[in-house]
């Protein structure tokens, strides 16, 4: 996670299309492929070996190097040997979900929009509409084969981008997507549309999960800067409803007032 944060920071500082960004993208991926117990064992063993290497009684330099590697293993959750073998014991990369149950942030909200389900579905399905109501999104470009490129405002003023793929697309019922493997941000989302009887509109239930750069620390930092994910999604949905029901979002920005 620390590696991801560094990579995002470097790309953000140098610009998305810069040589730095390309070089960072070319670096081998540091994937979490260790389970939590293994990381704790690595931390304990690595710390001990590192200590021994310094006090002169143990095998010196070799001990320091081995200790350093174990500490890296503990800090990143990445085992180079596992990675070379294409092997993982991590709970974070279980095949069912991009984000394990205990990781990241999960937000769910519901809103009822006074429009028929097909219209509500179509507006959401065009992902390029999303930045109109999701204010943390800068841009979404749909590319080919159901993929899309998302650019968002991240914590500390950084820009984060990732590619997403469609998991499910049942017209007027449900859309689900997730970030492709190896993205800076692990994220997944789904939106379900329920047509209500007697012209009562469409219930829209949104579930978003994401593991922001910096993990839980990252989302804590993001909160400090006012980007409370729960509130963010609730207000995004309010704007979504406003656009569909009225064609605009209400504002007073730019209206006159007297001396403040």
């Amino acid at each position, binding site marked *: 996670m620390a590696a991801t944060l560094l990579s995002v920071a470097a790309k953000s500082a140098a610009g998305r299309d810069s040589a730095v960004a390309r070089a960072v993208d070319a670096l081998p991926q540091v994937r979490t492929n260790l389970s939590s117990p293994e990381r704790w064992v690595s931390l304990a063993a690595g710390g001990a070996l590192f200590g021994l290497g310094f006090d002169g009684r143990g095998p010196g330099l070799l001990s320091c190097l081995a200790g350093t590697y174990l500490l890296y293993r503990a800090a990143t959750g990445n085992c180079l040997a596992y990675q070379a073998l294409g092997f993982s014991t991590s709970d974070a990369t279980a095949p069912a979900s991009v984000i394990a149950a205990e990781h990241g942030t999960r937000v769910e909200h519901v809103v009822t929009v006074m429009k028929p389900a097909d219209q509500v579905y179509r507006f959401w399905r065009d992902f390029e509409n999303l930045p109109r109501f999701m204010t943390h999104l800068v841009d979404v470009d749909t590319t080919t084969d159901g993929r899309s490129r998302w650019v968002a405002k991240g914590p500390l003023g950084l820009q984060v981008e990732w590619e997403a793929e469609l998991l499910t697309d049942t017209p007027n019922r449900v859309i689900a997507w997730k970030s492709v493997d190896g993205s800076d941000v692990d994220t997944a989302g789904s939106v379900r549309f329920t047509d209500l009887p007697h012209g009562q509109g469409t219930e829209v239930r949104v579930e978003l999960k994401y593991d922001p750069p910096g993990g839980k620390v990252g989302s804590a930092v993001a909160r400090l800067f006012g980007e409370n994910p729960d509130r963010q999604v609730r207000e995004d949905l309010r704007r979504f409803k406003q656009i569909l029901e009225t064609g605009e979002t209400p504002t007073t920005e730019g209206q006159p007032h*007297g001396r403040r």
Partner: protein
Amino acid sequence: MRALCWRGQKNVAVERVPDPKILNPRDAIVRITTTAICGSDLHLYDGYIPTMKAGDILGHEFMGVVEETGRGVTHVRKGDRVVVPFTIACGGCFFCKRELYSACDNSNPNAEVADTAYGYGGSSLFGYSHMFGGYAGGQAEFARVPFADVGLFKVPAHLPDEKVLFLTDIFPTGYMAAENCNIHPGDTVAVWGCGPVGLFAIKSAFLLGAHRVIGIDYVEGRLRMARDLCGAEVVNFEKVDLYGWLDDKTGGRGPDACIDAVGMEAHGTNLAAVLDRVKAFAHLATDRPQALRQAIMACRKGGTVSIPGVYGGLLDKLPMGAAFGKGLTFKMGQTHVHKYVPKLLARIEKGEIDPSFLITHRYNLSDAAEAYHRFATQQDEYVKVVLKP
């Protein structure tokens, strides 16, 4: 343009501010020809409404001529003469479609604040604090009106401004208060507060078939208007034992419906009223519901208490036991103005009512600060103040 701006508690001033601009496709700009000060503006003036900012433009009773429209506006155009409901409604949400316009879901840019305070917040209002949307008001030369197709009502050329201006708020508010009483022929309705809303409630109760209407106040000038211009029996609650008086006048049964057209800044002389002032001063309660307490206690069994008076926060010592014991019905809330404008405009056109009877004073907009001061301090004489930009 010139606009009346809120500066702080008991401090308003006419200032030069920029002209309003179209900000959204469904906006219109209205050149204001007549505007008024509402009794509820005094709640702002007295500093009772939170989320005000210095420099906010006040005013929610205004009318004029359409000056400019956004590209999404189709039902009105430049030159149309219009009245503007004080509640801002989108016309497309669940609530607007049920004619509950003051519960509109989509007009408040600060809906989160109102949701936090009330569970679910209502519509925005012009010139009435940031919790209610923060929209600039109409005590000015121009105003921007969102959702103009829904929020502007054309008025016929032969009706002068002063006859239709009060369709923006107080006439529909008094009318809805009376309609909420579910009046049957022969009913007696008691109205607390003979200010503009109370006077319109009295007139409306008669229009809706009430047999007798009783006006209750302590300001003699207002009681005279209720009696002479609206046909009510009147009583000064400071001079009688109100419950005994009402009981006697209703044959020992109590009024069929009671309207609280006073709201959160009720005046009173008994111990509870004095305690209310102390608590409000000490921030232990926000509202002083003396009129509401009396209305609940005086109402007959199975009757209706209708509340057009504005409440904002927490009420203390409300006799819920009496309300429950008598099986009262409560009806209240901001007026669904949009629902009432067409039918009340028709009544004005037919000559059933001339709302201009209410106007006691006319000021130029430039002197609006003076008008506020007098309206707040000389209630005996100042009932309704109209401003000309």
